[in-house]
């Protein structure tokens, strides 16, 4: 028995394998280039349209006529080839794939770096570029070098007012931005088993910020119950718990609210050290923290109060928005003075809907704080939903513990 990546890819670490792809997805950003490369390749075929997905999320709804035209072409293409398609407002690709599509043991590739999110299901999920994806569309296969694995052993439970996001930023800080380059990360231990599916998705999501190819959890009872909610019957995977290139241990009890200080995701500091920093915008959403549990936590913290800075909340998918309207949390969020955007990536990649101005500072629940990412001359601090809520209410960076 080997690591989960070795088991799924069927070869020991270091070997090159050609592997059938179980699910392949692109979004409106990478889909355009994929389509162009696919046309140039000239195969004329899509190997398995029922397992191929085009999901609009990055600049959706379109912001201008150039984008609109590119999207129209992709939409038309999806229709012609019977490719599974999600329209603007459907939600973020990784979120949609996590709503009962990806199953344990599958090989999943997305033309987006955060495709590692789906490793939370015990799938081997990784990002590729557009040309690789074009070849996958044609052949249904691609090559991988089976990665070595870093084990992250989790114990204990998270203290109140900390979240999976604080844990995620903490491990990124410990490994560094290239600490897991070319490798996979496997989360295990009693602390991992105690995490909800939403928490696991957040942890797997950040794996690529350490350079990792994949971030995996073994499917267990929690995974099976979650997928049963989408009508999928799956069985748990048996953890090997061995064969790691390196292991680090994290005691969840020791996690505190943290932020990643721009422009590096691995520059992680306790919120308490930076309290009082002026903030111009708070953004809650993305494939990291735009799930229902996140919005619910945020709503609980701001309900009946008023935010002091402009606050943008973007649900990660249409079904999350619908559920939030039904339960009333969206009403609470709006009543607190926040604006709710249409499901998708929102301002995360700095292309539309909430871009920040020069010299402005945003506290965001996203996963990247690179220079100029959300707007030229702006700065992004990354934090948890609780930190976002406390900060929105105070108008300055605030530890959720003090809220």
């Amino acid at each position, binding site marked *: 028995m080997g690591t989960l990546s070795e088991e799924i890819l069927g070869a020991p670490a270091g070997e090159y394998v050609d592997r059938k792809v179980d699910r392949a997805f692109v979004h409106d950003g990478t889909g355009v280039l994929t389509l162009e490369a696919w046309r140039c390749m000239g195969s004329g075929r899509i190997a398995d349209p029922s397992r191929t997905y085009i999901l609009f999320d990055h600049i959706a709804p379109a912001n201008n006529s150039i984008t609109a035209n590119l999207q129209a072409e992709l939409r038309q293409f999806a229709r012609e080839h019977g490719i599974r398609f999600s329209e603007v407002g459907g939600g973020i690709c990784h979120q949609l794939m996590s709503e009962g599509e990806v199953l344990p043991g599958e090989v999943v590739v997305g033309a987006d770096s955060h495709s590692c999110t789906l490793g939370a299901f015990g799938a081997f999920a990784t990002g590729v570029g557009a040309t690789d994806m074009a070849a996958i569309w044609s052949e249904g296969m691609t090559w991988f070098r089976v990665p070595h694995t870093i084990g992250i052993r989790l114990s204990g439970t998270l203290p109140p007012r900390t979240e999976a996001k604080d844990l995620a930023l903490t491990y990124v800080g410990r490994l560094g931005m*290239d600490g897991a*380059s070319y490798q996979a990360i496997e989360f295990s231990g009693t602390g991992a088993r105690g995490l909800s599916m939403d928490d696991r998705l957040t942890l797997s999501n950040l794996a690529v910020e350490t350079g990792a190819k994949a971030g995996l959890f073994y499917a267990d009872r929690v995974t099976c119950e979650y997928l049963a909610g989408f009508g999928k019957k799956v069985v748990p995977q048996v953890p090997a718990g061995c064969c790691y290139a390196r292991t680090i241990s994290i005691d969840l009890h020791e996690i505190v609210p943290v932020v990643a200080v721009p422009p590096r995701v691995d520059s992680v500091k306790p919120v308490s050290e930076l309290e009082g920093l002026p903030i111009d915008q708070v953004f809650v959403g993305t494939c990291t923290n735009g799930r229902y549990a996140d919005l619910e936590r945020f709503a609980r913290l701001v309900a009946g109060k008023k935010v002091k800075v402009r606050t943008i909340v973007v649900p990660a998918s249409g079904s999350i928005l619908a559920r939030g309207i039904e339960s009333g949390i969206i009403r609470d969020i709006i009543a607190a003075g926040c604006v709710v955007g249409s499901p998708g990536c929102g301002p995360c*990649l700095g292309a539309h809907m909430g871009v920040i101005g020069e010299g402005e500072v945003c506290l965001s629940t996203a996963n990247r704080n690179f220079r100029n990412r959300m707007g030229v001359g702006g700065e992004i601090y990354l934090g948890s939903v609780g930190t976002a809520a406390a900060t929105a209410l105070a108008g300055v960076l605030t530890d959720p513990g003090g809220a």
Partner: protein
Amino acid sequence: MRIEGKALCLPQDIDTDVIIAGRYLRTKDRKLWAVHAFEDLDPGIAPRLAGAVIVAGKNFGCGSSREQAAIALREAGVAGIVAPSFARIFFRNAVNVGLPVVECDCPCTDNTLVVAELEEGYVEMGGSRIPARKLSPRMIGILKAGGLVDFWRASH
């Protein structure tokens, strides 16, 4: 397979947002990406890219999977990139668009001549020869074809 050009030194952890910013992704215009490459790092860098070999610190190309980053550099005329390590998606993308990448830990002096031999695995700069990791035969094949699209067409 051999590449050569004048060294253009860059720091470590160059991310794809810095190579080509998200605000330029709303198009298919490759020339536009080339013109705006590295704009947020150094707005005056564009004219120096043609014919240059980028010699960077570790973890080059981290961040997003946007292939536009690799395309921008190829379009701008970059002859190749030498770095101790690359983010894996960027590494694959670069090969797939026909942009040579070499894993090698070399000290860098701007404008010195750099020669890299990809199959034999070394980089020569300033009179010294430094070993580099060899690319897999498949990657060499793709680079020689000028990218995965042409490689694919030739093999199907």
